[in-house]
């Protein structure tokens, strides 16, 4: 039991100090029947590190790592190259094993890093302020809906059909806690949904994604104006924030809240979690923002320092009147993202975005030449939807057997919309070598012929 520091002599000494015969005696407030009921016949006893490692490595070996061959999966979980520095720093015990920075005098490391993170998020989204992160993009999206309801004192949330369906579902679940007022439009691969026409004086917000789940870049300017005319907020979702290195940020197109998933720039996809939700808004709405916030202040000696602030919004003080029940953030993943952005800087971030886009344009051009294949979006960043002449699901399964993870088939995201069965979402990043692109093009050609 290598994690337990007491030896037998320690326990004996401590019990003697307490005048207690045994540890069990300390449990005397627990009803005897309850104690007796607790038997765990099926659980194994403790094991050494080698045994645990062998067990888990065997489970890991039953998976096919995405990077073991060509991989074109995106749809909200991206695989970028994360420099070795990021993980090395994140694993410093002082960051990894620290608690929430409630004691600011001895938590300036975490606090300053989160203040820097907030600034970076505000900068890339084109917004004025950001919080210190949320669980993931989906929950950030849902919290944006709740925030819009609070700000506007209206109930209706309109979700574009271009929003990632899992985000939409999470938003329905969370924002529907009290009301049932979230309307999700049908998925809209061609981008002809009429959002503007649906905004009215009952609308708390419109939630729209760009690049949307089909990869399409959207100009939000007119929609933002329409929202503001009706007193509604515009919430923009970004599942690939690297796009913001190349395309106009939602903040510059009038969005009131921008939420995003930062995992792709912070670390490996890790089967979908943990991620990190980015949440940015306008300064005027700051006090309605959910989640943890770090603010700048000074100490008694007048030196700059950082603290958690505006906590009167939060549950430990407001209890049932809190803006949200959220009590943790995704601190360590936010830190990883922030370190990566620090490494990238203006040059690296924009260049990486250009690289991703160039690869996607190249891939789209090649795929569009395949008979019967259509690239749906006109404008995209590093991911786009294809329309295949046949259902995409079986094609993906076939290519997986040949070692190519071809993309996300429509049936995986929209099982309720059989008309999207021929859609295949394909993403590339800087980690995609030319040979992998060949493998996909050749594989699809073969599978479709």
């Amino acid at each position, binding site marked *: 039991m290598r994690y*337990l520091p007491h030896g037998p002599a320690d326990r004996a000494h401590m019990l003697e100090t307490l005048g207690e015969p045994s540890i069990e005696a300390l449990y005397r407030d627990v009803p005897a029947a309850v104690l007796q009921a607790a038997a765990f016949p099926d659980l194994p006893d403790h094991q050494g590190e080698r045994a645990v490692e062998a067990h888990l490595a065997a489970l890991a070996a039953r998976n096919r790592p995405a990077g*073991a061959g060509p991989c074109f999966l995106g749809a909200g979980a991206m695989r970028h190259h994360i420099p070795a520095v990021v993980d090395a720093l994140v694993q410093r015990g*002082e960051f990894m094993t620290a608690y929430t920075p409630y004691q*600011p005098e001895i938590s300036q490391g975490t606090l300053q890093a989160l203040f820097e993170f907030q600034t970076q998020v505000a900068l890339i989204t084109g917004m004025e302020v950001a919080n210190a992160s949320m669980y993931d993009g989906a929950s950030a999206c849902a919290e944006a809906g709740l925030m819009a309801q609070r700000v506007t004192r209206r109930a209706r949330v309109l979700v574009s059909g271009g929003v990632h369906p*899992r985000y939409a579902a999470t938003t329905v679940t969370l924002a529907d806690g009290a009301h049932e007022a979230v309307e999700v439009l049908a998925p809209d691969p061609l981008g002809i949904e009429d959002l503007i026409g649906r905004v009215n004086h009952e609308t708390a917000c419109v939630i729209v994604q760009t690049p949307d789940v089909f990869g399409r870049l959207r100009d939000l300017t007119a929609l933002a104006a329409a929202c503001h005319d009706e007193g509604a907020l515009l919430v923009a979702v970004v599942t690939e924030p690297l796009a913001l290195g190349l395309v106009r940020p939602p903040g510059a197109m009038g969005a009131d809240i921008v939420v995003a998933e930062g995992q792709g720039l912070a670390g490996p996809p890790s089967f979908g979690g943990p991620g990190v939700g980015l949440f940015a808004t306008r300064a005027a709405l700051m006090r309605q923002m959910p989640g943890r*916030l770090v*603010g700048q*202040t000074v100490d008694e000696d007048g030196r700059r320092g950082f603290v958690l602030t505006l906590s009167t919004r939060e549950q430990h003080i407001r209890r049932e009147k809190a803006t949200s029940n959220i009590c943790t953030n995704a601190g360590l993943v936010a830190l990883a993202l922030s370190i990566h952005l620090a*490494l990238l800087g203006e040059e690296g971030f924009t260049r990486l975005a250009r690289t991703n886009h160039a690869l996607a344009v190249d891939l789209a051009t090649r795929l569009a030449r395949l008979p019967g294949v259509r690239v749906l979006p006109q404008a995209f960043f590093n991911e786009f939807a294809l329309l295949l002449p046949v259902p995409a699901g079986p094609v993906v399964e076939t290519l997986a057997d040949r070692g190519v*993870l071809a993309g996300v088939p429509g049936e995986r995201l929209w099982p309720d919309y059989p008309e999207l069965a021929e859609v295949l979402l394909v993403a590339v990043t800087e980690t995609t070598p030319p040979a992998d692109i060949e493998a996909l093009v050749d594989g699809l050609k073969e599978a479709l012929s």
Partner: protein
Amino acid sequence: LEEPLLFELDTPGVSGIDEPEPEPGPTRLGGLEREGPIGLPGLSEPAVVRHYTRLSRRNYSIDAGMYPLGSCTMKYNPRLNERMARLPGFADLHPLQPEKTVQGALAVMAELGRWLCALTGLPAVALSPAAGAQGELCGLRAIRAALRERGELDTRRVVLVAESAHGTNPATAAACGFKVEAVPADARGRMDRAAFRARVGADVAAVMLTNPNTCGLFESDAPELARALHDAGGFVYMDGANLNALVGRVRAVDLGADAMHINLHKTFSTPHGGGGPGAGPTVLSAALAPFAPLPVLWQEEAGWRLIETMDGARARGLSPFGRLSGFHGQFGVFVRALAYLLAMGRDGLRQASGDAVLNANYILAGLSDVLSASYPGPCMHEALFDDRFLKDTGITTLDFAKAMIDEGFHPMTMYFPLVVHGALLIEPTETESRATLDQFIAVMRDLALRARAGDQAAFKAAPRLAPRRRLDETQAARHPVLRWAPPPSSGASSDESSFRTAPLSSNP
């Protein structure tokens, strides 16, 4: 040496990443190119490493010292867990890979689920909640869904919450549309049995109850009160925050719980990370299990599957209340927790909870004559004191806490729970050695004696040995500065003031 902000370290033209510039070629951006620079600072890799190394050295951490934070279960975070979570077969899995390529990952989720169910005695678990608070939400949404199915959603509007509960409890109940009513504590620091029984009725949807409660005391009446509520048609939500006292010794099912979240980042040793990510899988009774959120892990002949749609769930007799996350939950945290469970095993977990309780009682005994213990022992895994021992000293619990910093210890939890005045809640966990506990007790005794001796000025001035002295939190909240902005002198006129003073009424 002070450490500047990243933005103050900007070296234009420098990047810590050497990706080559792509060949110039066509773009397909539809005219949506970004205009103007973003404003990210440029730093070399050495500059970044030094910046974060220095920042990290301004943090307290469990690796460097004891964190006696009550209700936070700051235990050691094994390094093996980190290594396991980084195996390419786990870390480099895309959540939407074909299921046949991720059977090992699904098996990890299933195996973790089996452990959690076995340890709590409850039959089902929803793994996807991202943190404890989301786990609470999961439990209450499941209760709401069950009530809806019984047609009682409109009549059962009230959730009872213990006075001593964490703030997340009422916040969550409110977020689920319930009306929150507090149940007072009795003189023994437990939920007032009579008040509870009197309140049980046809309008009560559930009670939210922490056990051991946040005074560190076991709620001995829990099974009996749960029975009463069950008989009246209500549900019991058990807050799992204090599970560390019970693991391997007491099962939630035997305390009457219908739902309980489990903080993997507390009880099962995954790191706090300065505030996350955590994970809050929620175990559910048979009555609530059908309402567990999507995705649902399901074993079929071909292997493990994730049921992702309402239709798919209904076909299997389930009625999920919705979904809580984009994918399948905090998988990386699951791997860490499973590594811990395997390492500790049944015997280790039982020993750990026992050691945690032993340590808390050792502290309670070691300090009871100089601090004011709020309730007689034995306590469970944490010991509660209040500020009576500081009476007439002019020193507050906060001052006392800040003085601990100068002695090399992180302060305990302060001013919580609310049921006692100026609370000091101390949870050592099982991973602190006797030597550390003795040192902690000695420091606390010394501080208490100094406080009572009237050394007020020293306490008010604390901390003096930390990277910062006390910070002005009032200014931070009154004039929030939530981001860096370029100084006005550096060209583009600063709009920093707008981040501070824009009135709420400018809101559309």
